[in-house]
């Protein structure tokens, strides 16, 4: 069932004198990374199915500045932030949803101090709300009884105390949610945060994503669920390193739901 994606841009809506219910902040990974683009599309399919009136900034979107800030380049971060805030405020944006916990954290917590005040939600929170409001519904279907473990993204979990939204969605799949030995507030990082994604790790005995993948594999999962494009990459690499890619899939929550819905 290949539907044409409906992805309106803010510029188009604005020209038509309309406001979206929510702005979908796609993020750099979601726009450019081949793996993350699949997450973006899965999320859009759900938005389309639920008839959510959303828009993206498209070519007007730019990096939030998160990796620059965590690398210590506050200057570049604030330049990015101020530019993005000008665009968002120019369109009168009230609510932002994003599938990237780093964008989520930055826009939610660090933009207000620079003049950007929005209601910001992570896509798992938004999807959960769609279920609660009855705008989408789901039969467990193909994930019924499957063992799924959820890897908490640091910038969603510890950084912002969002632990339950992604788990509630996994439960809606009728799947068997299994927890790793360190999860929620004690979840181990995938190794990508703090701009580590963009550099070689320091000398050590092991890569962090391997350590985390081992913890995930200990739960004997069929699927490792993620809620962050960077965690997704790290865990996918980890599973490949362990040569388990034929039996263990790494999937974003949005992909799980889109697949269950056969979108």
């Amino acid at each position, binding site marked *: 069932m*290949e539907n044409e994606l409906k*992805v309106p841009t803010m510029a188009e809506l604005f020209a038509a004198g309309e406001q979206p219910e929510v702005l979908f902040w*796609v993020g*750099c990974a*979601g*726009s*450019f*990374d081949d793996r993350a*683009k699949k997450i973006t*599309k899965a999320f859009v399919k759900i938005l389309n199915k639920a008839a959510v009136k959303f828009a*993206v900034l*498209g*070519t007007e*979107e*730019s*990096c939030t*500045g998160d*990796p*620059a*800030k*965590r*690398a*210590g*380049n*506050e*200057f*570049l971060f*604030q330049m990015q932030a*101020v530019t993005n805030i000008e665009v968002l405020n120019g369109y009168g944006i009230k609510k932002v949803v994003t599938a990237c916990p780093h964008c989520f*954290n930055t826009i*939610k*917590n*660090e933009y207000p*101090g*620079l003049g950007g005040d929005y209601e910001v939600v992570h896509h798992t929170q938004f999807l959960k709300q769609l279920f609660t409001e009855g705008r989408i519904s789901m039969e467990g279907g193909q994930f019924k009884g499957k063992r799924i473990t959820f890897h908490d993204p*640091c910038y969603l979990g*510890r*950084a*912002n105390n969002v632990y339950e939204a992604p788990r509630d969605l996994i439960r809606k799949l009728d799947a068997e949610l299994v927890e790793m030995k360190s999860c929620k507030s*004690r979840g*181990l*990082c995938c*190794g*990508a*945060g*703090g701009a*580590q*994604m*963009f*550099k*070689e*790790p*320091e*000398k*050590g*005995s*092991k*890569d*962090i994503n391997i*350590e985390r993948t081992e913890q995930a594999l200990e739960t004997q999962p069929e699927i490792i669920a993620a809620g962050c494009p960077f965690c997704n990459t790290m865990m996918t690499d980890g599973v490949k390193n362990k040569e388990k890619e034929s039996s263990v899939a790494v999937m974003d929550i949005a992909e799980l739901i889109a697949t269950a819905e056969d979108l």
Partner: protein
Amino acid sequence: MGYLPNIVFAIILITGIGYFTRNIQKLSRNIKLGKDVDTSDAKAQRWSNMLRIAFGQSKMVVRPIPGILHIIVYLGFVIINLEVLEIIIDGLFGTHRIFAFLGSGYDVLIASFEVLAALVIVAVVVFWIRRNIVRLKRFLNPEMKGWPKTDANWILYIEFVLMLLFLTMNAADLQLQQMDVAHYTKAGAFPISQFIAPLFQDMSISSIIIVERVAWWLHISGILLFLNYLYYSKHLHILLAFPNTYYGKVKPKGQFENLEAVTNEVKLMMDPSADPFAAPDENAPVPEKFGASDVQDLNWVQLLNAYTCTECGRCTSECPANQTGKKLSPRKIMMDTRDRLEEVGKNMDVNKGQFVPDGKQLLGDYISQEELWACTTCNACVEACPVSIDPLSIIMDMRQYLVMEQSAAPSDLNNMMGNIENNGAPWPFNQMDRLNWAKES
């Protein structure tokens, strides 16, 4: 001559408290070397954090075994110190068990002190075994060699001896009470020391009095010495945990401060009416240094954090970088900060209160770039700390210094930042291609 003990006691007491006050003044001066930071917000949440985390020990029990043992020692510390009040009054006025008039209430007090003292002894022994026999991994990191290890064991020995002296004192007292010796008021219930008292049965009254007096004097002197040991020890947390949890971060952990000095610069750059060639105002303050290379660049809460750290290592054991063999240890960040701050303080002591540059700094001489760049900013260390210390904020401030003052980022990160500057993404993709995904199948 009759007043000699009272005078000696008063001298010991005043000396003990006097030195302690001097140490606290030094501590406060050093902490104030940090930059000012506004902590006047979220008062209700701050009080609640202090009550929950410090008084309520809520984060200690995340690890149940050390958590429960620690609660015992903590309760012992708080409650048995009520006894110190009585000892001080008795010592100053030559009375004996002045609170005995409380009757059965006094029995309950003394009995609970005794039970706690016995439990503290058990807890301290288990702690010692965990450090020296079981050798838990988090007590063996490289930063725990030398003084930190000795310090940790000393604290356990002192607590052990203090509790033992307390029970010995009570046991001898009980024996004297049973022998109807004058001055030894019949008061108190002794659920633990009643088993020690029979040891003194065959001794002469004067010998038992000597045992009781020696234990009494050593107990109170020991407490005063321990009080003065705090400043030189990781054990300062017994006092600083309370202010530290109050002043700890109240914003979401993911929210890092936006540097105001940078905001001003950015505003100037974005202001179309600003004249880029204008000469700076003569009275304009020197532009603020970005980030931190030494302790004076940190804020005072971060310095308070450093003195509060009791080197338990929960941060380091939860750190993904440390778990995978990297050099970074959040505990070492805190220990280094305190060591450097102490060094700066001593420098000021010998230079009439002025810091004379010593050619050293926190960055490089204590904390290496390799440690700083290994951090994933995951906040596991901040979450793990039972007293709300934030090692991550120090790491971030030092990264800011490296990048904005020294342009010393790893080359991979320079590429990433160059990409963001040029095309608005950490990878070299054109911003005009941002929506291409929507058209790809």
